[in-house]
């Protein structure tokens, strides 16, 4: 179960593969970096807890696919007890 997402802005190159695979969770900001779409119009690179995501119902598989599709491995996924799931 994925509980938390964060994007390393130093690694992110704006290839936008995450936007394509999980467009309800990720978008690019004005600096061309990936951000996590959260409730109450909050958008930043995280870390963002599951409860805060605008799309709380997104499948783990979709998130995993998005993270795996990143060509710089800039997306970090965490499960229970902050255990890193990917990369």
């Amino acid at each position, binding site marked *: 179960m994925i509980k938390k997402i964060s994007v390393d802005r130093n*690694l992110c*190159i704006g290839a936008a593969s995450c936007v*394509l695979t999980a467009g309800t969770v990720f*978008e690019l900001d004005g600096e061309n970096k990936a951000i996590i779409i959260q409730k109450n119009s909050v958008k930043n690179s995280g870390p963002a807890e599951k409860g805060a995501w605008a799309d709380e119902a997104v499948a783990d598989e979709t998130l995993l696919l998005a993270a795996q*599709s990143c060509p710089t*491995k800039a997306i970090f996924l965490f499960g229970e007890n902050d255990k890193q799931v990917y990369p």
Partner: protein
Amino acid sequence: MEKKIKYLIVGGGVAGTTAAETIRQKDDAGTVAIVSDEPYRFYSRIMLSKPNFFLEKIPFEQVWLKDEAWYGKNRVELLAGRKAIKLDSAGKTITLDNGDILNYEKLLLSIGGCARPWPIAGAEKRGIFYLRTLDDAKGVISMVKTSKQAISVGGGFISFEMCDMLRLAGIDVTLLLRESYFWEPMLDETSGRMIEDALEKGGVKIMRNTEVSEIIGENAVEAVITKKGEKIPCQIASVGIGVFCPFTWVAEAGVKVNRGILSDEYLETSVPDIFVAGDSAEFKDLVLGEQIQLGNWVNAQMQGRTAGLNMTGAKNLFSMVSFYTTQGFGITIGFVGDVRPEKDRLIISRGSKEMNSYARLLLKDGKLMGATLINRTQELGPLSKLIEKRTNLAGKESELADVSFSLANLLK
């Protein structure tokens, strides 16, 4: 040596590797092999032109997207440093440059694009780079440390990123454009000039309508001479003048090729059991209704997935709107969909040079085909959705041109 392989993949980049991974998920027993003409495992080719990678702000190790153990664990045989030189589609074999013959049941051609060679005598001298492979990148990384002057030839994503990296490394950069503005004729003049302004503010000297006629230097490049007779000293010449692949060995086997290797909407070529994915594919794009070739990471990745599934016997349509973005010199550039300015396109401008934010939306028969964006990459999401949904935009031209109008409203 002759060997039987159920799923043979030629090309070890993102399309080929994703296909291998997908195949293994669906078929646990079938043999899978990847032939790669580079002596490396799968790496992030997209990272090669990124300044942070060059300047070693991103650790070099980050370039590897699979560790060595991945191949063994997934029983994917990697034949690295080997080139496929012959295809026999009737006998279903591939011949490698060491004479080995590989017999396949299903074949994937994920051979990528090749940099168009610089048609000038001496273009093989040290210091001249195309930036296509990891070895090219390693060469540039080491040259950057000792060089003072560089030229970049051609207008495009790679050229833009190279200029950025070279300037960040403190090198004097001259950009040589054969055309009258950056990225002509793919972009319009307004977009081209916006990019040029950013480059010039960043210290890049731009020479337009300029071609090199001579390369000076014994073994390594020392200077170039333009057709107008100007001499430009340089220790690095980065050449990005487009992509061109002859695909002769593929065509000789009876596989239909055009600019790329032609395929249907399942990514199968004109010859059964031979599939194509990635930059080398000129595929039937279901969204746009046209035969199209794209050179971007996400397209290659997703095509690798679809081709891999279809090689295992599935029948999945490939349908996706892909994009590519870059940033540098304080601006962002994004392309989404098909950005070729074909004659039948209606092009709508959104924003302006004065606003420092400008997009061009390319429509055909009221449907969005593609868009180019400068400092508007936030609109990639809604634009790709408008393309994908084939939203009828006829009569919405003034809204599309109005930057205060949110494109998301058209999706409701």
